[in-house]
């Protein structure tokens, strides 16, 4: 007699500790083996793109903060570049340098959350809090600059909302000196931990062609071994003036493109961000950060597309202007949304416990997936 067997549908989320927000995963499992994963999104949809059509250009900036709320500076940055392209204005040097420093600090802060939560999902609670302790210091720098700790509304079209505090360069250098050794500490505590490697190496391998077919970008793409980074391959702002390396996954612990590689690329990227900040912080020229802000933003008819390398990948803004004070259409290409699509491909044949390790390693922010 044949035993009657059936697969079980397990709903993971929207209220689940490890789905990093309100993501619902429909897992089709056989015992603990994953047969299929269907992500269901939309629980955090806030109509950003529709709202943007009714807002004037400067009013949209705070809305961009709320997409990838762990990387608000990067969101502001991309939007500002897109509108500046429409207007055809050039911002002062001082603004460019401060923008780059802020974006790189934001990248470190965002990666700290990504690494911490990835470890947390696998059961390592303590590194998570160590990383949050370090992130706190970056948030304090931001707070000193613009008064906000999470949603900054700092990078405006044509300038910045505030100039940096006179102490900012000194404190940033102090932070760099403090933070370098803590990366080693993290590596000792979590990255090269035997159990952590066992849990992440050879899990959720993302082959190069799959990654490209799905349009994966950011650390998840570089984890598969492709050195593609917009800061170098399509330089925006003043990134072409800095010397930095692009971290790629080399499969040190397992196969190229596994969870561990995606994790380790982020660790290496923090190091490179520190390098960029070090180079930029001493070269900030004098000047006014608000001189280039137009009195009334009314771009001519036309379209503009700007893309930036956000901590999670390629963030693109496509703006259509019909000559009015509000944009006709703002389309966002969110890296989290695109990267999430590959989840089903990665999870097949793994165990339930691996799903959260994989989800943590592609590092999504639901605020951006749903917008």
């Amino acid at each position, binding site marked *: 007699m044949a035993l009657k067997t059936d697969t079980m549908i397990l709903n993971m989320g929207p209220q689940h500790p490890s789905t990093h927000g309100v993501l619902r995963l429909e897992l089709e499992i056989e015992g603990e083996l994953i047969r299929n994963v269907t992500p269901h999104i939309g629980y955090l949809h806030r109509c950003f793109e529709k709202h943007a059509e009714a807002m004037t250009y400067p009013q949209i900036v705070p809305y961009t903060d709320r997409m990838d709320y762990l990387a608000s500076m990067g969101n502001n940055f991309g939007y500002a570049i897109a509108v500046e392209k429409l207007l055809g204005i050039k911002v002062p040097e001082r603004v460019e340098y401060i923008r780059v420093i802020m974006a790189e600090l934001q990248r470190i802060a965002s990666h700290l959350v990504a690494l911490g939560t990835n470890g947390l*999902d696998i*059961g390592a609670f303590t590194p998570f809090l160590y990383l949050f302790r370090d992130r706190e210091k970056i948030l304090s720098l931001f707070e000193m600059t613009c008064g906000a700790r999470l949603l900054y509304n700092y990078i405006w079209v044509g300038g910045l909302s505030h100039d940096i505090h006179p102490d900012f360069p000194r404190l940033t250098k102090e932070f760099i000196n403090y933070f370098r050794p803590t990366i080693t500490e993290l590596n000792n*505590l979590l990255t090269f931990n035997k159990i*952590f490697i066992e*849990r992440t190496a050879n899990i959720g391998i993302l082959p190069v062609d799959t990654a490209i077919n799905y349009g994966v970008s950011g650390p998840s793409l570089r984890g598969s071994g492709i050195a593609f980074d917009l800061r170098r391959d399509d330089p925006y702002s003043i990134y072409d003036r800095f010397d930095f390396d692009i971290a790629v996954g080399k499969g040190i612990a397992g196969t190229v493109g596994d969870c561990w590689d995606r994790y380790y690329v982020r660790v290496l990227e923090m190091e490179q961000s520190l390098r960029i900040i070090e180079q930029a912080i001493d070269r900030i020229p004098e000047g006014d950060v608000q001189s280039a802000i137009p009195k009334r933003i009314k771009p001519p008819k036309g379209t503009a597309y700007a893309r930036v390398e956000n901590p999670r990948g390629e963030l693109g803004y496509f703006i259509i202007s019909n000559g009015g004070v509000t944009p006709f259409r703002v389309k966002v290409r969110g890296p989290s949304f695109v990267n999430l699509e590959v989840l089903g491909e990665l999870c097949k044949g793994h*165990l339930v416990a691996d799903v959260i390790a994989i989800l943590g390693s592609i590092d999504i922010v639901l605020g951006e997936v749903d917008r």
Partner: protein
Amino acid sequence: MYQFLYNLTGNVIIAGTITAAVPLTVLLLYALFAIWLERKVSAHMQDRLGPMRTGWHGWLQTIADMIKMIQKEDITASDVDKKLFNIAPVLVFTGSFAAFAAIPFSSRLLGSEVEVGIFYILAISSLVVAGILMAGWSSNNKYSLLGAMRSVAQIISYEIPTALVVLSMVMLSGTLSLDKISQMQTAYFWNWNILGGPAFTWTKLLLFPFMIVGFIIIYISTLAEVNRTPFDIPEAESELVAGYFTEYAGMKWGIFMLAEYANMLAVSAVVATLFFGGYQSPFGYLGNTLGLAWLVPFEQGFWFLAKGIIFVFVQMWLRWTLPRLRVDQLMTVCWKYLIPYALVNLIIIGIITLL
């Protein structure tokens, strides 16, 4: 203790109840302390302070939590199997608590002087498995069921290396009674089994390395038996929400927690008794020096709890340092590494004992 009370009162029930009440009281007080300790240990390891507001360094926090928990509504979901759902926490706690009957807290405080003490402990603590499976099944929740299945597989697997190491200790001591094993390791710490046992012969040197191996194996497998990190897979909160007790609320949930902490002490006590002299002091007794014979059992109680809590502390330390393994890796550790090593260790210790 039981005999003394029986002679005093002449009543089986009264004597039995009082004998059982003492470990229960100790256990409840210990649980309050251990939960507070866990919070403080984790906090200080993570660059935090932990509870600070309720009492000195938050020592009243657990009591406040317990009062809150008792007041909470006892929620039972509509689709659960009510009978099993209600029995499960009680059964789990009974399993952990009953183990204390055969554990000697001091030379005068031993619930029941069963000759097969360690065997009884291994048997009765398996009752926990039934309780966990009941909880997982009756909750009618997929996460609970997965958690229970993992838990049962894990506990049953890890009982084998535990039993093998226990067996080697039994061969060495020649008795199954934990009280007698403790008595053998009397006087000073170099008589402890971890250092080769009480006999001062050349076998002591020979035994020493294998005792260390045995200790490491039994410590790892008891960690897995009480579901602590890196083996806390059944209740992996990031995967299965809370594992088999996802659906429980209020005091029933509290009983599960209590059972977990009781279990931690139980396995630590067994390890301490087998390898670290149980209630024996490492360097003689103050009571004997001062000529106060009544002081000795209290000192023994102190040493026993101190050793137990040191092992509990190590369990907490590991929990807040390591990530957790995956189900299949957990089984690999058990079947491919611990069991063969424990078996070889058992044979070698057997040969040395025969010499």
